[in-house]
């Protein structure tokens, strides 16, 4: 005969969780047990709970705003006004190509972002290599942390601190004058120089981390083997290190480029009348009295599509697999 009193505790629903306090009370309540029962029994309910909120969020807030922006960019007028037509039109896009006032800053922005990306790569690569391969492993984290600390400071504060260095009565000019190199200050602030300086300062981290993790993964014996086989420093770099750190280069460049294209606070604080780049142009269409949303939306779409296409092509051509943040 089976002894029914010593049955093993049945699995799942029939076991009452023994938690003290409000969790236990909630877990024993009828509502909770009913909900969980549904969850366990029906795959469809389980899927709905798992997918409902994420899919709603992604559709609503990741895709929705961009679709709405695309929609508005095709409207003749927005918000709709009774005395003006609100038909679909391509005029906003045509305006971009016909007016140098818009087209020029856009081209300038793309070139600016490309120059910043390449400069950042050239500046940061040796640094990343030094930390990843030459610093002793036990000191490596400390060496990296020293470079990371300034990045906790935040975008605006770092931008502001660049002014301290480059202003007419900033540290650099005062120092140069003190040593008698110059008579009157070199105007460095509010130029392309200060803007690039600041943006590289802001974005170097996005280059440093992917490069560091890519270079760190290169097996050191491989580099030594190349040296043993007679490759000089340059050849080792060209034929071994560079190809093996390609993933890091692609990730870093993509991140820096995408951020540099849309940089906004830095041009406002560090740029001048001769260095107006596209984000400022777009922003003026949304702010102030000349509220031109359809044009602004169209220009934003152009910027989004062109910058993402550029990065996509770059990744395809250089052959990285995916953008990684760390």
């Amino acid at each position: 005969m089976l002894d029914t009193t010593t049955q093993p505790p049945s699995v799942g629903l029939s076991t009452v969780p023994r938690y003290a306090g409000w969790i236990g009370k909630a877990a024993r309540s009828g509502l909770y047990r009913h909900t969980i029962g549904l969850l366990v029994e029906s795959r469809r309910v389980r899927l709905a709970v798992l997918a409902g909120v994420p899919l709603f969020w992604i559709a609503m807030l990741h895709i929705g705003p961009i679709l709405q922006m695309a929609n508005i960019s095709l409207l003749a007028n927005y918000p709709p006004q009774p005395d003006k037509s609100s038909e679909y039109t391509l005029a906003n896009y045509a305006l971009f190509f016909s007016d140098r006032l818009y087209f020029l800053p856009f081209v300038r922005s793309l070139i600016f972002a490309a120059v910043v990306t390449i400069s950042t790569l050239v500046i940061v690569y040796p640094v990343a290599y030094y930390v990843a391969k030459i610093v002793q492993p036990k000191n490596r984290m400390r060496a990296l942390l020293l470079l990371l600390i300034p990045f906790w400071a935040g975008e605006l504060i770092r931008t502001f601190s660049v002014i301290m260095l480059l202003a007419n009565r900033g540290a650099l000019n005062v120092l140069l004058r003190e040593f008698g190199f110059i008579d009157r200050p070199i105007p460095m602030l509010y130029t392309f120089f200060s803007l690039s300086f600041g943006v590289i300062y802001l974005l170097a981290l996005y280059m440093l981390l992917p490069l560091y993790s890519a270079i760190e993964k290169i097996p050191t014996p491989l580099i030594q083997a190349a040296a043993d086989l007679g490759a000089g420093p340059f050849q080792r770099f060209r034929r071994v290190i560079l190809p093996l750190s390609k993933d890091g280069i692609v990730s870093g460049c993509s991140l820096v480029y995408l951020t540099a294209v849309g940089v906004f606070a830095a041009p406002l604080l560090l740029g001048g009348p001769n260095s107006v780049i596209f984000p400022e142009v777009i922003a003026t269409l949304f702010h102030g009295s000349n509220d031109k949303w359809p044009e602004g939306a169209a220009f934003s779409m152009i910027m989004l599509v062109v910058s993402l296409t550029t990065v996509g092509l770059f990744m395809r051509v250089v052959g990285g697999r995916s953008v990684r943040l760390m």
Partner: protein
Amino acid sequence: MRTYFNDLPKTALGASYWIFAVYLVLPLALMMAMSFKDANFIAFPIGNWTLSWYGKVVQDKQFLEASLYSIGIALATTVSATIIGVWIALLVSAENIWGKAVIFALACLPAVVPGLINAISMRIFIRAVDIPTGTFAIILAHTVHAVPFVVIMVLTRLRSMPANLVDAARDLGADPFIAFLRVTIPYLMPALFGGMIFCVLTSIDDFVRTFFLGGYQPTLPMLIFAKVQGGMSPEINAMATIVLVVTTAVGVYAEHITRRSRS
């Protein structure tokens, strides 16, 4: 001579590291030094030193209000971004779900869209769904920005989680929700902590989204921006130094904790 040439690349690399470190630290150091200048304008050299700017900032009601406002927004952002990020990560990591790669790519979309475009599209969106500019709009935009990073961090951690942990909990009688609460969440804790600190710092730091979506009440970056544009005095430096020290301390502390929990 030969050894000198062999060491040359190494020396050059070391020099590049130190020059880069100076490049990163110097402007911030100058900015901090300027906060002690005893004059009403920002210019080098710093003749006399004073602490009075700090006294002024600490009593500045605008600064305190903006700080509290920014911290409040950051906390709300962190809570909502963590919940939604974990939810998306669970969906993407679940087996036999159709179109996982697409869902993941779309979940990461706001991370690759340039910040300005992100801000503008949100501005257009909130007008379309009739949300006024202001606190709620800012939190929404900051959350959209932070979610992809939470998703990536949580997914990385989830992938390293042995699948049989949850099975074991279920076998021992936990229902799916209790198993999630008592097994999955504790396992995710390091990633969650890192993600939360990231959310707080990016939200407090954000300028462009707040610029387009904010109402009349300024956040910390907006206040600093307005002060920089409105004429500069070492008071801004003192303000920025306080913010800098606090955020750096939080960042370094978080770095320390996540490193310790990893090893």
